[in-house]
């Protein structure tokens, strides 16, 4: 059953406070969240005896080896028991009962207690996914194996994703091709979009169906004015502001371009978060379509700098670090922070860079998919995916590879 659009809020009604499901986890169990943040289904596997572990632990439950490695495992299983929790002492679940949980025996071995999608019953085959709950912790969710059309409207899924449909989204920079593509993808996905445009006195290309508001992330007053005007009516912020210029340190000879990069990518992000973050965090339980996500479009070079784009890499590394802090600061509101990591764009500034390059439309599609699937990290395009894979394998080797000019 599809969720109807939100009804108009009674302006005299109290805004309900966001609550979180239980937060504490062991260090080992945080691995579930790490896998879920990328949309992976990974569990600990014993390097000695291949036994798949669940719940996460320090030593193998079968052979007591300490060599447990997080690895993608088959996600199929059979629901052997289902139950409907009607009473809970936990304030978060108390507001959400009845809540369905069940036991699923995994094809990979262990039996797990998982949140159940509305369409899954005892005896059914199910597809387990790792999702981030409102507290940002990795949890198991059993979905119908056949992937029904209304999957994303399931009650548990709504709690663990940030579907832009019928939500109001701010795209911070609608002047650059990425912002325009992201705005178009969000409108296509059913969102109501406001695009920020800096320097309204300069010509710009409007995005059909999007509202325009003067917004310049380098101008504190402009960001504050925008937040004062409509910050309380935004459920998702997508920061698309970026300043793409080639160059590292010595060749540039001054810090002006670097300052512009930091001004837009780092300080701009901070200004937006200071202005729009408080209302987002406050409105994490506001109605049927509460505030739910913050998205940054950032360069994958933030993970490992490309010397040819050294200034940009540094600014994006700074922004990635800031995203980590924002994730912690927005967590009390149940707001997730998504980083869409992109490689070289197919734009004016990469005219002389050979393909593969990532098209702005692919970034728009990836942002929508990330929100619908509830992931916090996504690598968009071949270059970004390759760099993320190498980074996961060994960040120090990747750093040396980048020096050789692989990107």
């Amino acid at each position, binding site marked *: 059953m599809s969720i109807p659009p939100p009804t108009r809020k009674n302006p005299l009604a109290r805004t309900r406070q966001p609550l979180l499901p239980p937060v504490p986890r062991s260090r080992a169990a945080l691995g579930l969240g790490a896998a879920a943040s990328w949309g992976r289904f990974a569990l600990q596997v014993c390097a000695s005896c291949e036994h798949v572990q669940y719940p996460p632990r320090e030593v193998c439950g079968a052979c007591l080896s300490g060599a447990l490695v997080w690895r993608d495992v088959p996600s199929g299983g059979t629901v052997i028991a289902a139950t409907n929790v009607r009473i809970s002492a936990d304030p978060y679940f108390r507001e959400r009962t009845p809540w369905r949980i069940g036991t699923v025996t995994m094809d990979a071995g262990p039996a797990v207690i998982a949140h159940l999608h509305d369409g899954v019953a005892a005896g059914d085959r199910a597809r387990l996914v790792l999702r981030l709950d409102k507290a940002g912790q990795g949890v198991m969710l059993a979905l119908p194996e056949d992937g029904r059309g209304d999957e994303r409207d399931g009650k548990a899924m709504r709690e663990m994703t940030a579907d832009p449909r019928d939500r109001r989204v701010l795209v911070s920079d609608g002047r650059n091709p990425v912002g325009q593509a992201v705005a178009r993808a969000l409108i296509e996905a059913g969102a109501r979009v406001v695009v920020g445009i800096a320097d309204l006195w300069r010509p710009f290309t409007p995005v059909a169906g999007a509202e325009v508001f003067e917004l310049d992330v380098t*101008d504190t007053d402009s960001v504050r004015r925008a937040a004062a005007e409509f910050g309380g009516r935004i459920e998702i912020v997508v920061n698309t502001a970026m300043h793409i210029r080639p160059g590292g340190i010595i060749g540039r000879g001054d810090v002006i371009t670097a300052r512009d990069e930091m001004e837009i990518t780092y300080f701009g992000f901070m200004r937006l978060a200071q202005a729009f973050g408080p209302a987002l965090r406050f409105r994490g339980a506001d109605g049927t379509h509460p505030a739910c996500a913050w998205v940054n479009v950032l360069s994958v070079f933030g993970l490992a700098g490309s010397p040819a784009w050294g200034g940009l890499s540094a600014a994006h590394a700074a922004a990635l670090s800031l995203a980590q802090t924002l994730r912690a600061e927005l967590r009390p509101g149940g707001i997730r922070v998504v980083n869409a990591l992109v490689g070289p764009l197919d734009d004016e500034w990469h005219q002389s860079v050979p393909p593969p390059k990532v098209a702005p439309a692919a970034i728009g599609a990836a942002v929508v998919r990330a929100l619908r699937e509830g992931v916090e990290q996504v690598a968009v395009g071949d270059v970004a995916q390759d760099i993320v894979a190498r980074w996961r394998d060994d960040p120090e080797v990747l750093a040396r590879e980048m020096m050789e000019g692989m990107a």
Partner: protein
Amino acid sequence: MSNLTGLAADLASGRVEVVDLTQSLAPEFPTIVLPPEFGQCAPFRLEEVSRYDARGPAWYWNNFSCGEHTGTHFDAPIHWISGKDFPNNTVDTIPAEKFIAPAAVIDCSRQTAENPDFVLTRAVLEAWEAEHGRIPSASWVLLRTDWSKRSGAEYANIREDGAHTPGPDPEAVRFLVEERDVLGFGTETIGTDAGQAHHFTPPYPAHFYMHGKGRYGLQCLTNLDRLPPTGAVIVSAPLKIRGGSGSPLRVLALIER
């Protein structure tokens, strides 16, 4: 009574009026746009340091940043390559007496209302002189276009092929510096040159010839419609930036009632 005490008395009585020719420094005020591969002039930005709050309980203040050529600003000769070798060609070394001078105000607002690419020619200047007398040496020549009454996109007036704003042609500027020995040239638009002045020969003649003779520029002026054609005295002292090529400043005009 000395001239100065007389002036003070006239200011106090309102017989001499002070007209502010300055635009407010504000983040959204347009700055010059160059192709993106060139360095750019920073727009005006303001960061609040405290406002009677935890950051400073009893006081309000801001940090601001901008370029030397942001908002209503002064151009020193060193700003242009043609003026780079003059002595005293930076804002800190220009003799202070140059900052107070009379002005001739050339009203072209009727022409610019019809044509944003209006070009100030020698003929227009000579026609003005026929009516108001010879432009005195060491005076400012201010081009009134009423451009300051526009704002935002209308003010910048950028189209597919760049900005379309009025300005002087090369011959007019040479006439002013070589035959009238003026102190400088001032406009209401973002630059002293026309929006399409890169197509002139030489490009940007107001910059090239004015600074090439050690003269000055003022731009983003406002309230020129309140000045008489002759008789106004301009006070325009830029910030004393060491080695500076220009600076935002407060430009005042003294006029007699």
